[in-house]
């Protein structure tokens, strides 16, 4: 394979397919876990959830129309993020209901096009959108994933003060002079971007596991936010890479296997958490 740029982990992992899969999972898990800490702590899980499914619908439409799947997914995710507020206001429904509406529409669109593509004989690639596909990745896609994990890290490092303020309390953040609105929308934008890029690897039905579980695991052990921002991506990367290696070794579907691994680790973390123990001793 001369003329092809070398894979980044090629020196450690000989097999090219395995190498690409591991790299993809590594980068996807890092960016999802970092943003997952934000999503769970700002308590916008339902926004993340709805954006993930909208991106999924966008990708399905893009695939059907033979457009760039990633760009369609990004557009759909971003649109939803920016529609929630106005929709809630104009339709006089609660943001919660607005999200429910958008989620329903997203799923309907996605399922419609995936089912339709199956009747046209394009079922295989459509299934990839649902459950993820780490085998048939292009080199460029992996570079893009590496880039988005860098974007996620830089976003959190640069706007750390503002993000912690919003996590603490949006109204208090506003009262101390933080520009809450622009940072909040930037947050939603980066989440939409990440979700859309990770979608083809992890799949529209599972991406939520990558967003929420690492943060939930980190929360079992961390008392401080800064620790969560470190622990979540490390745990996510370790689980995702193990899942990819095991899945490819035993020919199991990688993303679902890894999702199960995440849940197992989460349950173990709940039992091992020091937060539920009373360490008081009467001397």
């Amino acid at each position, binding site marked *: 394979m001369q003329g092809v740029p070398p894979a980044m982990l090629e020196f450690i992992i000989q097999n090219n397919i395995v190498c690409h899969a591991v790299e993809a999972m590594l980068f996807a898990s890092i960016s999802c876990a970092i943003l997952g800490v934000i999503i769970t702590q700002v308590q916008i899980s339902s926004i993340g959830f709805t954006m993930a499914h909208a991106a999924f619908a966008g990708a399905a439409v893009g695939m059907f129309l033979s457009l760039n799947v990633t760009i369609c997914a990004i557009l759909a995710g971003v649109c939803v993020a920016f529609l929630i507020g106005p929709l809630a206001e104009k339709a006089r429904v609660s943001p919660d209901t607005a999200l429910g509406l958008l989620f329903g529409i997203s799923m309907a669109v996605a399922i419609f096009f995936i089912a339709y593509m199956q009747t046209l004989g394009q079922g295989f690639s459509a299934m990839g959108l649902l459950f993820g596909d780490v085998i048939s990745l292009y080199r460029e896609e992996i570079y893009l994933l590496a880039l988005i994990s860098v974007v996620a890290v830089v976003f959190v490092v640069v706007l750390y003060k503002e993000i912690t303020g919003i996590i603490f309390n949006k*109204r*208090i953040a506003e009262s101390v002079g*933080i520009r809450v609105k622009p940072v909040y929308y930037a947050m939603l934008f980066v989440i939409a971007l990440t979700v859309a890029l990770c979608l083809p690897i992890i799949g529209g039905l599972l991406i939520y596991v990558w967003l929420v579980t690492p943060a939930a695991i980190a929360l079992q052990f961390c008392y401080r936010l800064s620790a969560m921002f470190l622990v979540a991506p490390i745990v996510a990367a370790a689980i995702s890479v193990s899942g990819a290696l095991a899945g490819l070794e035993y020919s199991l579907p990688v993303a679902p296997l890894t999702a199960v691994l995440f849940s197992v680790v989460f349950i173990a973390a709940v039992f091992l958490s020091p937060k539920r123990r009373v360490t008081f001793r009467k001397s």
Partner: protein
Amino acid sequence: MTPTDPIIRLENVYTAYEGSDRPTLTDISFSVGRGEFVVVGGPNGAGKTTLLETINGMLPITHGTATVCGHDVRNEGVRVRCRVGYLLQNFAFDPLTPFTVEEVVLMGRFGRIGLIRKPGKEDHEAVEKALHLLGIEDLARRPIGHLSGGQQQKVLLAQNLARDPQVLLLDEPFSNLDMFARESINKLLSRLVASGIAVVIVSHAFDDLPDCRVRVVVMHDGRISLDRECLPADVGQVDGRISLDRECLPADVGQVIRHAGSAPCYA
């Protein structure tokens, strides 16, 4: 802005909440000078909280002009909030909140520090000073969610002091505090006022105020129904604490306050 200019100046201000067909504040004209201590009273729903949030620009002003610390509140709300402390009403944090007291107090300076820049030595010193002023240095490393309601309230007050504010807006700060804490915070407030900070405090406890000149503002239905300075001579001394003399307040104020359901104890 000269030192004698009012630090808060509202002129014919109307404020309305989104989707509301009538203003919550109606034609408010209200100025506060440096080192002035203003107590705002009135029944629930009179617009006291709304008045504070209009002053610091968290609520949009629909008509009129507001200038605070030399900045136009409408266009430079963020600048105003970097100089104005605002203690929100009724806050309680979940035990899982992943912030220590120190981190919460440091947050008070985030607006001043500005985008991208990191907190420096000066900021950490301001945090220590604020913790010291409230006597809660020993809580610095505790998670805020593990503290009692009154302790949390002190932490939030420290957060506002860490900002070196020129104006301090306090929304019912005494609701969770015990008698000793009230007394020590009242002492602290009178020192702050003496140093030139303007304090606007929403409170029902008119009998429990710091030892300084007090201006009483009573709101009713989105309007200011009484605005009167009480000279120290008008104020009766009880048990070392200050309470407003009955004669100091016109009869209607007593009515207004009694409507609120709280029973202010006059000397």
